[in-house]
């Protein structure tokens, strides 16, 4: 029964996706119906995931699935973030596609497919399952990125993402094969057991395999030195899709990364030295890219790289299984709330055909739309880690975790990086508040994206009060 409850959200989202895909075949099913259908599916999946939250630790149907999937509070919270992101993406898409007309009904089915792949990914306990769910997710996302076929930027984005993503997938498959060759198993737990028994460098195939898998995962989370694609891809994709990628996809990949590296696998100690440098370079590289951007989407993409860096700190600084897992998942939620909010706000504020996307386009927004400007400011402050927002609590936990693990230098570097990142977050606030408006900021009639934005503002404050257990 527990097993079923833990698996139910994935089942709901997957069958919902199939249902939406079938519905999309009918010509007289309007996009709106598909949109509301997807919302219902995501909401239902979210509620079921909530029930699964208190169910404890279980290898789901270990007899049937041969211990391929695991369900615990870590995967459940990651699942909650993913379903919630899916739900909010549908809401903002509804408004967004009132002003940008290139939608087909399959859009919502693909969102749901991507979400189901992500949820499976968070639960994956062995390499082949992880590979399959990674591909389910990626294929759906490729299509979503290139949805606007006639737009040259979207085409460029999908081409870049598809080519590089295919390489990453190839790396992952090759790495899995080598791992299997080295350890005789594809299960995280057994790989960990092999490493702790024989040492990491006992088998050179294992080292190469692990390296390949890390490359693939680092690519997916846009960590240095595999981060270059993210700016162009985010820039080319539609606003809600970018939001979905930035939040849900990152959550899923970080969950499997954490599982593979520290929670269920045993690679952490061997790789910590390299990950340390990767975390540092990811933070500062992301900052350097973000400082130079004039487009908000590109700035947010680059700031996403920086946040990946902060999350990598939590992977490097491993204290106790529960605390580190909670810190990671809390930070993911904190980042997701603010980023989702930003993209929901941009979904309605960017106007017809995404005409407003640079910093300058948002000049004086506070004079015309004070509430929207306030909401965006709150999201930015949360990303910058200023109290009393959830972003601050996330960063606080990361720092506590890092210093507690003895990684004081990493914590200090994270703080230096935060100070640098203030520049581009403040820049938008200054543009919105301290300049005169030149635009009337006309937006579409659909109020759903606005509703999402203001609900997420509430979440920014409410989640910050949520205590994390140690």
């Amino acid at each position, binding site marked *: 029964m527990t097993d079923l409850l833990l698996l139910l959200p994935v089942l709901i989202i997957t069958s919902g996706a199939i249902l939406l895909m079938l519905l999309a075949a009918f010509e007289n099913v309007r996009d709106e119906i598909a949109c509301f259908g997807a919302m219902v599916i995501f909401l239902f999946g979210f509620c079921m995931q909530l029930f699964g939250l208190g169910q404890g630790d279980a290898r789901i149907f270990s007899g049937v699935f041969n211990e391929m999937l695991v369900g615990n509070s870590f995967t459940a919270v990651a699942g909650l973030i993913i379903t919630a992101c899916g739900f909010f993406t549908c809401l903002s898409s509804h408004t967004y596609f009132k002003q940008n007309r290139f939608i087909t009904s399959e859009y919502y089915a693909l969102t749901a497919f991507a979400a189901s792949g992500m949820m499976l990914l968070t639960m994956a306990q062995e390499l082949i399952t992880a590979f399959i769910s990674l591909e389910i997710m990626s294929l759906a996302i490729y299509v979503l990125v290139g949805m606007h076929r006639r737009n040259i930027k979207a085409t460029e984005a999908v081409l870049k993402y598809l080519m590089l993503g295919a390489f990453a997938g190839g790396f992952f498959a090759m790495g899995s094969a080598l791992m299997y060759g080295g350890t005789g198993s594809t299960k995280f737990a057994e790989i960990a057991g092999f490493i702790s028994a024989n040492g990491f460098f006992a088998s050179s195939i294992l080292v190469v395999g692990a390296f390949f898998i890390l490359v693939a995962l680092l690519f997916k989370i846009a960590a240095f030195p595999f981060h270059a694609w993210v700016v162009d891809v985010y820039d080319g994709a539609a606003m809600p899709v970018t939001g979905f990628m930035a939040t849900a996809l990152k959550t899923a990949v970080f969950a499997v990364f954490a599982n593979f590296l520290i929670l269920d696998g045993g690679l952490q100690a061997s790789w910590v030295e390299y990950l340390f440098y990767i975390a540092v370079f990811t933070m500062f590289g992301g900052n350097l890219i973000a400082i130079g951007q004039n487009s908000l989407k590109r700035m947010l993409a680059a700031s996403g790289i920086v946040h990946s860096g902060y999350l990598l700190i939590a992977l490097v600084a491993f204290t106790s299984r529960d*605390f580190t897992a909670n810190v990671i998942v809390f930070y993911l939620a904190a980042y997701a709330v603010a980023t989702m909010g930003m993209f929901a706000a941009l979904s309605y504020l960017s106007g017809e055909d995404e005409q407003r996307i640079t910093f300058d386009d948002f000049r004086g927004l506070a004079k015309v739309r004070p509430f929207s400007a*306030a909401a965006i400011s709150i999201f930015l*402050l949360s990303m910058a880690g*200023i*109290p*009393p927002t959830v972003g*601050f609590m996330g960063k*606080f936990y990361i*720092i*506590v975790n890092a*210093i*507690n693990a003895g990684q*004081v230098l990493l*914590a*200090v570097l994270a*703080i230096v990086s*935060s*100070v640098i990142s*203030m*520049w581009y977050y*403040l820049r938008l606030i*200054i543009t919105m*508040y*301290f300049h005169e408006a030149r635009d009337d900021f006309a937006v579409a009639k659909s109020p759903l994206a606005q509703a999402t934005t203001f609900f997420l503002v509430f979440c920014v404050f409410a989640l910050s*009060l949520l*205590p*994390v*257990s*140690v």
Partner: protein
Amino acid sequence: MFEHILSVMIFLPLLVGVALLILPVSKNGVRILGLAVAVVVLVCGLKVYADYSGGGGLEFVEKLNWIEGLGISYHVGVDGISLFVLMAAAVLFPMVFMLFTAKSKAYYCNLLIALGAMVGAIAAADLVVFYIFWEIMLLPIFFIIGLYGGENRIAATIKITIYTIAGSLCMLAALVYVAVAHHTQTGVWSFEIARMASLELQGGFAVAAFVGMMLAFGIKIPLFPLHTWLPEAYTEAPYSTTFILSAIMAKIGVYGVIRLVVPVFEVEMARYAIILAYCGVIGLMYCGIAAIAQKDFKRMLAFSSASHMGIIALGIFCMNVQALTGTLFQIVAHATSTGILFLFLGILEERTETRHIDDLGGVAYKAPVFATFFAIAMLASCGLPGTSGFIGEFLIILGAVKFNMVIAVLAGTSVVIGVCYMLWLFQRVFFEEANSKTANFKDLSAYETLVFLPVIILILVMGIYPQPFIAKIEPAAQKHILQMATQDNPQLAERLDESGLLKLTND
């Protein structure tokens, strides 16, 4: 209500401020409501002052578990150290609603949010709670300077924000380091400020954490050489905000050093006190000399305020009871003298539409009440005997004599610089010939006189009969120094003389 009196003082302004931002209330409505809230805070503050027993420990404590796994709780309280800072905030705040009219209602809302955050930072007994309120304090200032400041407001607001946030983040790392050290040493997670005093911190990280915290507070005070944001921010901000920055927020920086740095990092403090004391004295002299050169009276007072903060900071680093008592006394004295001068200059600019000192003259003949009040506040700021400024600076210099003779002599003589620029300003603005700008200068109205009168009386009372105030401060200061010196710090305890005072002179 009385068991939650501090929470009321913190959250009433915060919530009303946010609510008024959202609700469609007229500008005057917001101003009146804001004043009402500030008066409620004042009444609560007076109640706290009256009921404060002086036992030494925290009183009016409220504690609510928040993140139990890490031992973080919503924990507030008041003791002898925080009482006077709290009172400075509560007493002076209503004035900013009474005197100037703002451009829009958001100005008053931001002021209310700043008030709540400042009270929260002063009353916090938990590191995380302190940090949260400390950071919230900055946000309204950022928006006020950016929205309502003068010509260079954007540069000024970026400067103050980046400076302060950089400092705050250093402090965040430092305080997490302290809490983690507490966990390693005792095995218990806690962020309670009082518990951190018992830690034994050693090594390079402890020094780094000490530096991190000192950076945050040094920027807020501001301590030389971290003062470079101050002239722009003080000059560009509207007068009532400059008043808050100078009279209250700078004091919270001083308070933070006394509350967080001195007890936790007693060894580092003892080792580096001399350097910090020199920073204080250099700030006192440097900003004083800079003030002489200014042609803009707001900028001049900004430097003057920074200069006097130097001597207040010096009082902490001497680490003896006299100096600490003087510092706490001077916190109120500086707020009521230099702080109030910003309000007077605001009135001066409002009526003459210039900030250029040389454009003015003869105000004293046109406005005798204004000139008298200004003179009293000015002389208190210079430290003339009979005013509050004298008592505080005298105690600090007395403490400095025990600490280090060179510093004491430098501090004592540098006070004269303050007299120079203040009297020269007074001569150029209030005496000499009246000109076209000052010919029609209106004296303070009856309403304005009533607003300022209590503060002027306070300056004189604190100067002529300081005993009741010192009686409230001294036990707390004594306890603070003793606790710091004896608690697991034999090095310092050895230097205690028979009267419980520290001898830290040249050894």
